[in-house]
C-alpha cells in the first residue's frame, strides 16, 4: 500500500516536472540574462513562490529552466553511455577470449578511479558546453552497462536454445539479432533509465564546481553554486529550491526505474543501486 502510494507520487512528480519543463518556454519564457535589481533577495511569496536570488531573478522559474537542461543532458548522456557500454560489453561478451579479458581489465581500471574526478578531467580539457558535459558523463558512466551486457551475453551464449538455433542453420547475424539482442535490449533500456538520475547528478556536480555549463545559463548546478553566496545573507531559498527539485525529480525517476527492474527481473530486487 505504502509502496503503491510512493509509486503514484513518483509518477505524478515526473508528469508535473516534465510537463512544467516542456510548457514553461511557451507559457513563461525566460530571458537568461535579465536582471531585476529592484527585487533582489525576496523571500518566497505568492508572486515569487521560490523567492528571488541576489540578482532579483525568480528562483523557481530559473529552477524549472535548469531542470530542462539537466534532464536533457541526463537523457542524452545516459543514452550515449549506454551505447558505448552496449558496444564494449557486446564485443567482450560475443568475442570472448583475449578481447574480453582486455576490455574487462580496462573496465576494472576505470571503475577504480572516482568517476567524478575522471569527469572533471574530461570537461577540463574541453570548452565548457553542453557537449562537453554530455561527453564527460557518457565517458564515465558506461561501465555498468558494459558489465551487464557482457554477463548477459556470456550466460545466453551457452544456453541450449542458442545451440538449437545454430543447429537449425541460423547465421551468426541471425543468432545475434533474433536470439541474443532481444534478451539484452530490455536490460540495456533499464540500465539507461537507472542511469538518468546519475547523469543528472553528475551534470549538477560539474556545474556546481563551475566546470559545467556557462555560468549565465540557468542550470541546477549553477544555481546551487550561485545560491551559496545568498546563503550567508540569509536567503536560503536560492540554493534549496533547485536542490530540492533535483532530489525530488531524480528520486522519482529512480523509483519508477527500480519498479520496472523488479518487474523485469524479480531476482534483482534484493540489490539496491541508487
Amino acid at each position: 500500500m505504502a509502496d503503491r502510494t510512493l509509486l503514484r507520487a513518483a509518477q505524478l512528480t515526473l508528469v508535473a516536472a516534465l510537463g512544467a519543463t516542456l510548457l514553461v518556454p511557451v507559457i513563461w519564457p525566460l530571458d537568461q540574462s535579465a536582471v531585476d535589481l529592484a527585487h533582489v533577495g525576496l523571500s518566497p511569496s505568492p508572486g515569487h513562490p521560490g523567492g528571488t536570488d541576489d540578482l532579483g531573478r525568480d528562483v523557481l522559474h530559473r529552477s524549472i529552466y535548469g531542470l530542462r537542461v539537466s534532464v536533457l543532458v541526463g537523457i542524452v548522456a545516459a543514452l550515449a553511455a549506454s551505447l558505448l557500454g552496449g558496444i564494449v560489453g557486446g564485443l567482450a561478451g560475443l568475442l570472448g577470449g583475449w578481447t574480453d579479458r582486455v576490455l574487462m581489465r580496462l573496465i576494472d581500471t576505470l571503475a577504480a578511479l572516482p568517476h567524478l574526478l575522471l569527469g572533471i578531467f574530461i570537461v577540463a580539457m574541453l570548452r565548457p558546453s553542453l557537449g562537453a558535459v554530455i561527453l564527460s558523463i557518457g565517458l564515465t558512466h558506461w561501465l555498468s552497462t558494459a558489465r551487464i551486457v557482457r554477463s548477459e551475453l556470456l550466460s545466453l551464449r551457452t544456453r541450449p536454445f542458442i545451440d538449437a538455433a545454430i543447429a537449425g542453420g541460423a547465421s551468426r547475424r541471425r543468432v545475434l539479432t533474433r536470439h541474443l539482442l532481444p534478451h539484452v535490449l530490455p536490460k540495456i533500456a533499464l540500465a539507461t533509465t537507472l542511469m538518468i538520475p546519475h547523469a543528472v547528478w553528475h551534470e549538477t556536480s560539474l556545474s556546481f564546481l563551475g566546470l559545467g555549463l556557462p555560468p549565465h545559463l540557468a542550470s541546477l548546478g549553477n544555481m546551487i553554486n550561485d545560491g551559496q553566496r545568498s546563503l550567508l545573507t540569509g536567503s536560503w531559498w536560492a540554493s534549496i529550491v533547485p536542490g530540492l527539485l533535483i532530489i525530488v525529480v531524480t528520486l522519482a525517476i529512480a523509483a519508477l526505474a527500480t519498479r520496472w527492474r523488479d518487474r523485469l527481473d524479480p531476482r534483482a530486487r534484493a540489490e539496491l543501486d541508487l
Partner: protein
Amino acid sequence: MTLQAHAITAGYRGRQVLSEVSLSVEPGETVGLRGPSGCGKSTLVRVLALLHEPTTGHVSLDGTPVTGARHRVPPQIRTRIGLLFQSPRAASDPRLSLTDLIAEPLRATGHPRDTIETRVAELADRTGLTPDLLARQPHAVSDGQLQRACLARALAHRPAYLLCDEATTMLDASTQAHVAAVITEEQHHHNMGVLVVSHDPALLKRWTTRVEELI
C-alpha cells in the same frame, strides 16, 4: 552413408571429457548410447551435432569429414543433423511462440513464407500440437508439449540424422511413447538415423537396434 565419430577426444578448457571415442550411426538404424553420469554422453552428442569442436579426431557426415564446429560449418551441413535436448525449457527461446519456435530453422535458412506455413502445420499435426498450443509461449505449456514442439523443430529440415540427448527422460509415459512413435515414423519415411542417449535400459531395449556403452 553414415554419421561417424572418429577417435574423438574432446573437453572444455583443458578438462578432457572424451578420449578416443568412435561411434557411427547408419541411416535408418536406431543406436542407443548408455553410460554413467558425467561420462561425456552429452559432449559426444554436441560433437556429433557439430556444436563442439573436438581437440583431436573428427566427425564425418556420409563419408565427408567435417572441419570446425558451430558457425564454421556451412548451414547446409549443420541442418542435416537434428538435435533434441534433455530440457525442452532450456532449449527454447522463451520469447517465441511455439509456431515461431518450429518455424525458426526454416526462416533462418530462407524458405518462402507459404512453404514454412504448410510445413509447420504438418509438423504440428504429426507431433500432436493443437493450434491453441501453437500460439502460446514456452512458459504457458507443459514440458511434454514443449518437447513435442522441439521435436517438430528438430525435424523441420528433414534431417538425415537425429540425436536425442535424454530427450524423453523428463516426459510422462504417454508423451514418451508419442515422441518415440513420431521419430520412428520419420525414420520409416526418410530412412533417418537416430542416436538415443538414455539411462533407461527398458527404453533402449525397446527402441534401439544396438546399444553402445560409453565409459
